[in-house]
């Protein structure tokens, strides 16, 4: 639990109010809440209660049910566009399931560190209203005009008075099983879910509270308020987004052979995440639940309850293979002595960088065993015996595991059926919400105006949830697009600090255990107090948390600080957050400096307490020295051209353009071929519903062409682009002619292509060896000359090898679909699929797989990566006759020879040919496979690090139709934000040219990668030149400042004198 974050209690008698900017920053009218703050006597109270008979009404634009990562992403997207969002969550905090995780795959980023900034942004957003501990009671109305009744339960704690000090928890006598910690520990009846909770208000669990009043007696601010009633709030909204997330299946009724609930050391994977979490019950140590000791061996059993036609759920839960790999590799890396095994059937490492992550886990020593255990039993010492067959070696074995983790199925939230009835939307047979059309409209539920986001539609990982949430945001804006919008935060007027002596406040962050376990935070703070100009120094548990933000603002006001130093993590993590805190306190955001005592200190010197403490002290000293010399900076404002350029006219590009048009935004749809449709033109049908491609793209092409807001440019390519976000000027070559266009944002939807196999598997040498695309073309055109007797599909051709270590994600599904097509066209043929893992993970895909196997009698043969199948041509007629396929069956451990009349290769894919040129033109990165690299693999999958450019579809990574459409609509939502904001501000720390020193040599222009500095003729003397900075384009990288031979360029915020004092501060310490 967090320590007290205040050194001294706020003295209410002195009338110093708490900042009230963190909870409701409502632009609309809110009635009674303001009055509850000042209740002093019972008489006044009863009067207030009388007036409370009226229900509070909130007029919003969008109502979002569920505030996990999906709900939050959707809320932020819509709020950023200027619409009002009301978001409710049934628990007492936002954050959802993502905050329960320790780290996320495949980047191993700390989960709470990536989610918390979004949570704090939610609490600070002027257009978002959070109603936690609330549920939806009823819903009436239709799209554009919904009337919802929200039941907000009382927390019995006054949010304005609670300081998060934790005194109440220490005296509460009631222990309740904690659902946040997945039942492996208890909490009190008064509690906060986790330390970084937003809103940071303790909650009394009414059902378990015994009413003893102990909490009330110890609460100094007097925040406990048993008279605070639950209330029904009426919310009017135009659209609704449902993002209520998932739960984890507990095998207590079904699949009892695994001993869950019977044996202490058998736990679910979510429980294991809580063990690994630094703020979990064991503070990050994986221990056996029976005795709290470190386990010698840990085992993971996959597919418990998933992929089960009986005693479970028939679908694949999509994320378990990866989270088990993640948990296993994290534990193995930290504890190489622990024996780790994962028992699986297929390892579905299908996503971007997933296969490489899986390979790395194997390198670390994680044992992967292909064999689903039959039963688990407990030994005398409470360890478990796992009985399984290793299907790749044929042995029956019994392994011991001190701790057994079950990767159980992802099931829909238990309240789903009830919520579905309240909303009037359909639930499918597994309990997930049904979409209107899986392949055409995966985000729209079965009722118009209600949209689905995240796992509530089907299990999925974080990037896919976030993409879908952005897509839901785009769709939710359609019914309300013409409503009034309100952009931007209203900050208090900036305090003028010119002429003042620096008064510096230093806040040193514990970052939980991340910093405080490796260096003496207290000592660093004490040393900071003694520094010149420092008037206040203290250490806090999590500087990025909401209550620390409050603290910083209060301290700024109280101590009249005019400069702030935060010693914590990297500026790229929370720098923006702290700058916003300064703005809210009325200070210019550039009067701020961070000392990175985490990434640059505690993380790299974790084995030397004294040295790390000393280094942290120097870093703070340097930051303090610099901040004293920092002055306020201004940011340039510029307008946005309200048009988006969508590059690529395939399914993703078209869906993105349509989503933009439905939000009222113009777009240019660029397609290099003469017709729209992309790859779907070549294909026959899509899985898992076997819909014909023409039924998907033809209506779509018609809709796009008819739409007045979309201007389609076919036979066109982007050849040059200039400018920056909001102000792009591009040259498009169409039919040989160059055309100039202007646009504000760009969406890249260029898709993918098959790689060149370079003759592998004899591809190209025989007319009976085809690619999947060629097969579909032939089936479409009915151009098969003879009936094939044996058809062999070879998956993973050119994939997951040294050259291309990645998985193509869609190959398994495509091969199943085409196996079905072939078997339907040639019912007498025998179809084989040679595979490495069967990676069918999406909604309804596992059921499709089951159907193909059973009803079409397809034989699947597994082969190992180092023993690839061989295709042998016939000596007499190598070009046209049948071939022989030799494959080493990994399960039967013998070579199988199949005479094949038709061989279909599932060829790996890479980024489209245009990747290279686009990469350079737009200055955006792409990986070795030619796929563009997003800003953050988990929570910013649709953005680039460069603002204004967005990504969707197979250009990001190959994906199936459902995921492509969700991403495309998501990218449209992202691209619409700057346009709807209408203006943007640039960077404040830009370069500045001293005209007197500048010789006009042009060195700076040549080193600038953003084309932000230009040599122009002087205004007073046109014969001579001078460098001029474009403040809108300048990113503040400092390259020009470093390159200038005359020393004429200084970068604001990093001026020479400011750097000099840092060096002095550091070196003085050393020489002393």
């Amino acid at each position, binding site marked *: 639990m967090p320590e007290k974050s205040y050194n001294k209690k706020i003295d209410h008698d002195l009338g110093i109010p708490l900042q009230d900017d963190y909870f409701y920053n409502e632009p609309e009218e809110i009635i009674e809440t303001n009055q509850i703050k000042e209740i002093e006597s019972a008489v006044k109270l009863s009067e207030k209660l009388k007036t409370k008979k009226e229900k509070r009404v909130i007029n919003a634009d969008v109502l979002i049910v569920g505030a996990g990562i999906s709900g939050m992403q959707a809320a932020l997207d819509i709020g950023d566009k200027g619409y009002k969002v009301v978001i409710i969550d049934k628990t007492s905090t936002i954050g959802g399931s993502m905050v329960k995780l320790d780290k996320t795959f495949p980047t191993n980023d700390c989960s709470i560190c990536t989610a918390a900034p979004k949570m704090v942004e939610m609490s600070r957003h002027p257009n978002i209203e959070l109603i936690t501990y609330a549920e939806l009671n009823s819903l009436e109305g239709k799209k554009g005009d919904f009337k919802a009744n929200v039941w907000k339960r009382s927390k019995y704690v006054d949010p304005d008075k609670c300081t998060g000090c934790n005194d109440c928890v220490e005296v509460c006598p009631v222990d309740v099983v904690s659902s946040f910690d997945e039942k492996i520990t208890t909490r009190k009846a008064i509690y906060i879910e986790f330390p970084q909770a937003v809103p940071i208000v303790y909650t009394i669990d009414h059902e378990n509270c015994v009413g003893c009043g102990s909490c009330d007696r110890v609460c100094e601010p007097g925040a406990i308020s048993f008279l605070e009633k639950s209330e029904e709030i009426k919310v009017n909204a135009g659209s609704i987004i449902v993002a209520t997330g998932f739960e984890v299946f507990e095998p207590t009724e079904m699949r009892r*052979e695994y001993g869950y609930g019977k044996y202490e050391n058998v736990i679910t994977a979510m429980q294991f995440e809580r063990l690994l979490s630094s703020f979990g019950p064991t503070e990050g140590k994986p221990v056996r639940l029976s005795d709290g000791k470190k386990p010698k061996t840990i085992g993971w059993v996959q*597919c418990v309850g998933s*992929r*089960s*036609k*009986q*005693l*479970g759920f028939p679908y694949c839960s999509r994320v378990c293979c990866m989270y088990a790999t993640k948990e296993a590799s994290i534990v193995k890396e930290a504890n190489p002595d622990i024996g780790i095994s994962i028992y699986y*059937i297929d390892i579905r490492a299908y996503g971007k960088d997933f296969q490489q992550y899986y390979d790395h886990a194997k390198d670390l020593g994680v044992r992967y065993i*292909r*064999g*689903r*255990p*039959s*039963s688990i039993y407990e030994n005398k010492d409470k360890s478990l015996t796992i*009985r*399984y*067959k*290793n*299907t790749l070696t*044929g042995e*029956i074995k019994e392994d011991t595991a001190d701790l057994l983790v079950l990767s159980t199925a992802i099931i829909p939230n238990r309240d789903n059926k009830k919520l579905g009835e309240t909303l009037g939307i359909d639930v499918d047979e597994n309990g997930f919400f049904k979409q209107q059309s899986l392949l055409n409209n995966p985000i729209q539920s079965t009722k118009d105006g209600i949209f689905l986001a995240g796992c509530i539609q089907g299990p999925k990982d974080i990037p896919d949830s976030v993409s879908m949430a952005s897509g839901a945001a785009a769709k939710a804006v359609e019914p309300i697009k013409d409503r009034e919008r309100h952009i931007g935060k209203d900050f208090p007027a900036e305090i003028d600090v010119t002429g003042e002596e620096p008064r510096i406040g230093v806040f040193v962050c514990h970052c939980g255990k991340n910093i405080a376990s490796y260096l003496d935070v207290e000592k660093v703070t004490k040393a900071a107090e003694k520094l010149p100009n420092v008037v206040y120094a203290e250490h806090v548990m999590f500087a990025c948390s909401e209550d620390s933000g409050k603290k910083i603002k209060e301290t700024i006001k109280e101590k009249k600080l005019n400069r702030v130093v935060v010693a914590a993590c990297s500026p790229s993590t929370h720098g923006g957050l702290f700058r916003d805190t300064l703005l809210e306190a009325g200070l210019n955001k550039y009067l701020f400096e961070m000392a990175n005592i985490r990434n640059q200190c505690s993380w790299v010197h974790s084995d030397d307490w004294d040295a790390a403490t000393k280094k942290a002290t120097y870093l703070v000293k340097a930051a303090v020295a610099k901040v004293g010399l920092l002055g306020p900076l201004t940011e340039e404002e510029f307008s946005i051209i309200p048009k988006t350029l969508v590059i690529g006219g395939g399914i993703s590009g078209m869906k993105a353009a349509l989503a933009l048009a439905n939000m009222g935004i113009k777009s240019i749809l660029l397609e290099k071929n003469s017709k729209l449709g992309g790859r779907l033109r070549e294909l026959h049908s899509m899985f898992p519903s076997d819909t014909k491609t023409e039924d998907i793209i033809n209506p779509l092409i018609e809709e796009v062409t008819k739409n007045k807001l979309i201007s389609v440019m076919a036979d066109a390519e982007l050849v040059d682009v200039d400018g920056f976000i909001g102000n792009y000027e591009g040259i498009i070559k169409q039919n040989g002619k160059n055309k100039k266009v202007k646009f504000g944002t760009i969406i890249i939807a260029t898709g993918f292509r098959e790689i060149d196999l370079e003759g592998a598997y004899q591809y190209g040498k025989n007319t009976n060896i085809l690619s999947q695309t060629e097969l579909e073309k032939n089936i479409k055109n009915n151009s098969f000359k003879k009936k094939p007797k044996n058809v062999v599909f070879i998956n993973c051709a050119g994939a997951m090898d040294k050259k291309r270590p990645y998985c193509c994600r869609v190959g398994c599904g495509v091969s199943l679909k085409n196996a079905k097509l072939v078997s339907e066209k040639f019912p007498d043929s*025998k179809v084989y699929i040679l595979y490495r893992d*069967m990676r069918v993970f999406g909604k309804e895909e596992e059921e499709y797989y*089951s159907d193909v*196997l*059973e009803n079409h*009698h*397809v*034989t*699947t043969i*597994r082969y190992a990566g180092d023993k690839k199948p061989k295709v042998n041509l016939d000596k007499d007629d190598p070009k046209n006759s049948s071939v022989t396929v030799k494959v080493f069956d990994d*399960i*039967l451990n013998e070579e*199988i020879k199949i005479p094949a009349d038709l061989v279909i290769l599932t060829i790996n894919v890479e980024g489209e040919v245009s990747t290279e040129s686009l990469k350079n033109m737009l200055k955006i990165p792409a990986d070795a496979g030619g796929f563009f690299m997003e800003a953050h693999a988990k929570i910013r999958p649709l953005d680039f690090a460069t603002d204004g450019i967005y990504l969707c579809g197979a250009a990001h990574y190959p994906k199936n139709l459902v995921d492509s459409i969700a991403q495309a609509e998501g990218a449209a939502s992202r691209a619409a934000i700057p346009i709807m904001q209408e203006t943007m501000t640039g960077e404040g720390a830009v370069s500045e040219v001293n005209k007197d020193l500048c010789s006009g040599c042009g060195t700076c222009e040549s080193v600038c990668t953003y084309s932000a500095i230009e040599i122009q003729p002087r205004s007073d003397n046109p014969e001579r030149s001078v460098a001029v900075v474009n403040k809108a384009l300048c990113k503040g990288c400092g390259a020009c400042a470093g390159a200038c031979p005359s020393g004429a360029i200084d970068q604001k915020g990093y001026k020479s004198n400011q750097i000099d004092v840092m060096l002095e501060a550091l070196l003085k310490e050393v020489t002393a």
Partner: protein
Amino acid sequence: MQGNKEIDAIKFKEGGLAAEVEELSGENVFACYQCGTCSAGCPFIDDMDLGPDEAIRYVMLDRKEVLNSNTIWMCASCYTCAERCPRDLNITKIMEALRQIVLRKKIDRTKVVKITKKEKESIPQLAFVSLFRKNIG
């Protein structure tokens, strides 16, 4: 597995073994995705030459050598595999189908039972009845 002249003489169409098994048992062997659960839970796996999962794979691959294995005779129809199979395959019925294919050709597994008088008197009747029902056509 030892070859057996009588069993080897049983003829099937191409793909007929799986079809015959499906007809007799009502179970579609192609549904199997070789997870190994059945073999891991089988009480007699140590004495079988093919595990139940391998036997099913043989049927899938149209290999009638599976009829020569002792697997189908070692099976005691304890239903453990059928209860746990994630594909909801009733492997007990599949084993019975394989036995019936042999037995209905009048190829008996148990020909003469040599046991002592004492054994005959102490072994429960139901053991004899079930043995003969299972192993004799």
